[in-house]
């Protein structure tokens, strides 16, 4: 009876262990691994190791939750909505896995296993406690020091904000290809702002308050010089592709000197979207990004990210 339960649990544990590398959703993969540990814990319960068994569940549940969170942080596609394969040296790995299983299994089957079960009625938890405080005291305290080292290492390696400010202050991440643009998050100002500007260039000050000063200034100058050239800012490509600096610089007309006041007027009724539509209807219509809400949301989202 116990053996049957153990077989079922073992099959469940192996199956969930296998599912870890087969499911698309990374969160499911982490929790499949947790189920595999729970199967181990169940076998422990059956094998008169109540403490180790239940504590395994407790420890592994926590660890797998952290694992799932890191999955979401680091996987391109954490939910596996579009399947992709992220494996290398696949045949070699399968071979290694099979050889390991076959070797260990053969060793198990061929060797003469000892047979002396735990005496029923032993208080195994108290035994472990006495072992910890008595003969294995040094192991216990060494584990403490090791865990301390782990905590320090984890903080040093992963913490972004230290006592002296951001760990990566002023640094730019390397490009995705040699000499390319910095990848991902940019330290100070970057693509995100350009994006936001494209939106509010046309739509009043949805994001002006958050924009960095020089950017805002250039855009204002740029917006103020008349109808037609202003359009570059309206088309989504122009907004996203052309970054502020040169763009603004080329159009820096006399308005630059008084851009504060000029900006207000330029953004007044003359630049309202309806008016724009009259002047340049197709372009405005073709721009899906021209929805003020969408831009506002994106702008704020990015700012939230950077702070």
């Amino acid at each position: 009876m116990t053996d049957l339960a153990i077989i079922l649990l073992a099959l469940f544990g192996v199956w969930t262990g296998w599912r870890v590398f087969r499911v698309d959703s990374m969160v499911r993969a982490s929790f499949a691994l947790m189920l595999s540990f729970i199967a181990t814990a169940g076998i422990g319960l059956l094998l008169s190791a109540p403490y180790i068994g239940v504590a395994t569940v407790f420890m592994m549940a926590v660890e797998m939750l952290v694992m799932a969170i890191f999955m979401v942080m680091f996987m391109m596609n954490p939910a596996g909505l579009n399947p992709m394969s992220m494996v290398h040296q696949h045949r070699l790995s399968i071979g290694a896995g099979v050889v390991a299983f076959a070797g260990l299994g053969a060793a198990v089957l061929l060797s003469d296993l000892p047979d002396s079960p735990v005496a029923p009625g032993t208080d195994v938890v108290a035994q472990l406690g006495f072992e910890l405080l008595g003969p294995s005291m040094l192991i216990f305290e060494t584990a403490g020091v090791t865990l301390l080292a782990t905590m320090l290492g984890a903080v040093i390696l992963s913490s972004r904000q230290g006592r002296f400010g951001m760990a990566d202050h002023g640094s730019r991440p390397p490009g995705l290809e040699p000499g390319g643009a910095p990848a991902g998050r940019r330290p100070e100002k970057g693509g995100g702002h350009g994006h936001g500007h494209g939106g509010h260039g046309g739509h009043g000050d949805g994001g002006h308050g958050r924009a960095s000063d020089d950017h805002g200034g250039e855009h204002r100058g740029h917006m103020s010089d008349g109808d037609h050239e202003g359009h570059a800012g309206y088309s989504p490509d122009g907004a996203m592709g052309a970054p502020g600096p040169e763009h603004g610089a080329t159009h820096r007309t006399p308005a630059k000197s008084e851009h504060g006041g000029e900006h207000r007027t330029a953004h007044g009724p003359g630049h309202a979207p309806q008016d724009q539509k009259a002047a340049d209807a197709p372009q405005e219509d073709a721009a899906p990004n021209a929805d003020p809400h969408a831009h506002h949301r994106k702008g704020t989202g990015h700012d939230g990210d950077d702070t």
Partner: protein
Amino acid sequence: MSVLLAAGVLVALALGIWLGAWFDRLAPALEGGRAAGPMAPLRDWAALLIRDQAETEAPDRMNRLLAPAWYLALAAIGLSVVPVAEGLALWHSPVGIVVWGSCEALIVITVFLHGWSPNAPFPLIGAYRYAAIGLPVMLPSMFVLIAAALPAESLSLIAIVDSQRDSWNLVRQPLGLPLFLVVGLTLTLRGPLDFAGGVDIAGGTSAEESGAGLFLWQVARLATLVAFSALAAAVFLGGPLGPLLPGPVWLALKTALVMALTVLAGRLIARTTPSRMLHVLWVWLLPLSFAHLAVSGMVAL
């Protein structure tokens, strides 16, 4: 015998769920609101049950259906280790408080999955926030339970109840119950520690829930409240110990008391942001539970 006991636990759980729901609807009276009668929860649930359950776009369907089930099951498993009478529990586990600790950890995961599965922003925000808070909350919980295990010289809840014959742990370890209430608020998603739900993120993990799914989730939260209160009653208030009345009645009374306390605490304590709560948990509650453990150790020696 144990089947009967299991049926008893189930009935007690159902009654406790109803009582908890009523407490929740009584609580507004404290702030001058209108208190509802004892039938109000049943009416609300019936209304939920006849409503449709809307599906979201591309959800993790299996986890969405089963998250409330895991939550309910974990509450029931946690309740199973609580002794209903002296020396009698559904599950005579020698490591009862570790079992409860595992249930806590798995409840945090269940809430995370509940927020993950609908594939919608607000539930996900709730899930991540709750994970950030749920992890450190487990530390005070474990310290408090370990402190209660010291005088009993056992991890079994039966032994812990037995060790309170002379004086309850509430007296010997006065900090224990308040610290444990923080854990209860977290596990039952209530008040200041309800970072999974909450109106500030439109209902959080259950923002997309409706109909039977929402009903099950509410019931599971209340079931966890019952299990938590029964465990707290057993660990701090001597569980089924008491004069005259039979053990199960004492346990039920004490459980109801802790439930009312938890509902009150959830109602009266102010909320704060998750980042600040994280700071409070690590910088105040964790040292406090260290101190609690040290004092309890001295007392037990």
